[in-house]
């Protein structure tokens, strides 16, 4: 990995990390929701600092360039995040649906009184 890329990655993840913390302080983000993002930032920072480890792993795994390994890790991370959000949206959907049903049943009960 080139020095420039490492510097950009470190700066980028640091900004993201502190944005996360700031949002939590402003109570706009729940702690449990932001932990995953902070973990992602930390992984990126660690990968930029210990780039020789990344290089060693990528050679062992047969990557053409170490940076490809970094990208793959990030894509994997994002896919997991997306799946988690997909599940969360489904759960919310279920809850809204149950609420919807509850209102309809209540309304019917009131009308038949």
């Amino acid at each position, binding site marked *: 990995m080139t020095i420039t890329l490492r510097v950009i990655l470190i700066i980028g993840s640091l900004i993201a990390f502190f944005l996360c913390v700031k949002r939590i302080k402003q109570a706009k983000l729940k702690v449990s929701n932001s932990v995953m993002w902070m973990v992602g930032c930390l992984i990126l920072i660690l990968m930029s600092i210990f780039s020789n480890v990344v290089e060693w792993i990528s050679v062992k795994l047969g990557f053409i360039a170490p940076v490809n390994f970094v990208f793959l890790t990030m894509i994997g991370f994002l896919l997991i995040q997306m799946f988690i959000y997909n599940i969360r949206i489904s759960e919310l959907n279920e809850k809204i*649906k149950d609420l*919807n*049903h509850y209102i309809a*049943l209540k*309304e*019917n009960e009131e*009308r038949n009184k």
Partner: protein
Amino acid sequence: MKVLLIIPAYNEEQNIEKTVNDVIQNTDYDYVVVNDCSKDKTKEVCEKNNFNMLSLPINFGLTSGIQLGMKYAYKNNYDIAIQFDGDGQHQAKYVKNLVEEMEKTKSDIVIGSRFVTKKKPHSLRMLGSKLLTMAIFLTTGKKIKDPTSGMRAYNRKAIELFVRNASLTPEPDTLVYMLKKKMAIKEVQVEMKDREFGESYLKPLKSIEYMINMFFSIIFIRAITRKNI
């Protein structure tokens, strides 16, 4: 036996009055209209006629509407719940046959089928129906002649499954699920009319999406259902 007809309705202001009156005049069973937040005057029409109605404040689709009907049936201790379309395609005089068949054969689900004694006509729609029949036969070994029929009677056991499992749709893939649960499904010959007014839930372009969904659900999800879970 307490029997409930669940009549899902979405934008059916022109059909709903006739459908419910047909049910009231030609059967002795209870009914409930599930108004899925229609954009037209379906709700007002039902209120004016004093129909028994469950009115949803948010539109959520047919699956949710049927589940709500099942919850209502479960709560009010009905023995049989019958899905009955609000668009005027179904005729109430056939409902009795479904109930009688269910009492006679002690089956769990009875489908009002168009093709028990009659042959399927050749059309694109019926090709879809044939493919579904085939998929159900391959996964369960049972021939359902009219898997897409919207007129179905469910007994208490099936009602409970619908209340507990929100992923059960009122569609063919649920039949596979029920068959895998070792429930008995019977078919009774009925006739259906073509719809007179309004739009169906299944628009032409949506039918391809529908078929893909059904096949994925039948083959990858419902086919590996085990009896006791």
